[in-house]
């Protein structure tokens, strides 16, 4: 097991469903940070068998909508001076803008560039969102 030093200040995204860590890493654009970022994959987990985990050594405005869309079961913990200071629980947002794109090839959004397309939550369990233009359902 690789030893990753204990975090002094930053954010831990824990209990990520195994395999989804990289997607979260990408969608949160963590590769653009100058700070230390650790992505651990397939860590043994008592609860989930295997899980992914991300540590970010800086305070950062995380887009919780993105997280909730990809994997709403994650726990986000803020750490300051080596102490856990805040835990965030995620709920899928009722409306999403600028994160999703419509996967329906017959949708006008795939012919013409349209800014800020709204997607409304239609199925919280399956994290399905409907395009405001064509009503086709999509997820991240």
């Amino acid at each position: 097991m690789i030893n990753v030093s204990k975090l002094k200040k930053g954010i831990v995204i824990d209990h990520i469903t195994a395999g989804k860590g990289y997607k979260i890493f990408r969608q949160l654009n963590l590769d653009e940070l100058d700070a230390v970022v650790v992505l651990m994959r397939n860590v043994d987990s008592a609860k989930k068998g295997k899980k992914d985990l991300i540590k970010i050594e800086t305070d950062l405005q995380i887009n919780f909508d993105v997280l909730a869309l990809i994997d709403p079961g994650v726990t986000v913990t803020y750490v300051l001076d080596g102490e856990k200071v805040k835990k965030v629980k995620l709920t899928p947002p009722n409306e999403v803008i600028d994160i999703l794109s419509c996967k329906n090839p017959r949708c006008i959004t795939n012919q013409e560039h349209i800014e800020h397309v709204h997607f409304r939550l239609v199925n919280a369990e399956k994290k399905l969102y409907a395009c405001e233009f064509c009503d086709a359902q999509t997820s991240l």
Partner: protein
Amino acid sequence: MESRHLLQPSDFSIAEINDMLRLAKRIIQNPIAYSEVCKGKVLASLFYEPSTRTKFSFDTAMLRLGGQVIGFSDPTTSSTAKGETVADSALTISKYADIIVVRHPKEGTARLMSKHAECPVINAGDGGHMHPTQTLTDLLTIVSYKPEIKDLTVGVCGDLKFGRTIHSLVTCLARFENIRFVFISPDELKMPVYVKDELNKMGVEYTETSSLDESIGSLDILYMSRVQRERFISEEDYLRLKDYFILTKEKMKHAKEDMIVMHPLPRVNEIATEVDSDPRAVYFHQVKYGMYVRMALIMTLLGIKDPLCE
């Protein structure tokens, strides 16, 4: 002032729809009284894909209200050929037209135009997505033969899986009081779950069957639909299912005296021509109702008062 649009049937409340249907019926009774209410108004009729039938219906509706029509029925001759976006077209055209009618092969185009236009926009069909004036036409047909849209058993027969206009008719009818449905189709073409979910949520009663013979006797309205070749991957499946339900004189014997048969037209062979002479067959009248309901719609969206109700 924010413009009012018709992009999908749910843009109007049941009370508003009933008002519009009543207006359409008054126009039918006295068309002369309405022949100049839109004088000086211009309708832009933008058909990015050809649909002669629908375009004629809208254009005639505007002309019969005394208004004028501009537009195109062939996108290759329009500014889209020069690469203008639909969004820009909507804004520029609304600078000189009072109301826009749009048909486009891409889903959601009418909504996009409504966001940019400075006048009302009517969706005349956006791909397979919505075709709300077809639904209004169906509703006006119903109230022309039934006292009101209430306490009715509506049979819907044929391709229930892919027919989006059928889905929008069913979910719109479901908003009226005490409407029950009988969905008649082969297993492969059953009503999709999303429509049934919506009916369940609204507490609307429906049954599913594969027998038109057994269910026709209980119906007040029979809505026949087309089984379209392009929906099928294999020619075999299409040929097997296409003739699954054909309405014949023989089947009509089991139907109620006052049942009406509707069909969005054009038909392929779902209704045998021998049924056409049956007085309960109203599908050829639907075309006329389509024009009158569009007249009422144009007046409503332009905020024009009924000259007979002042």
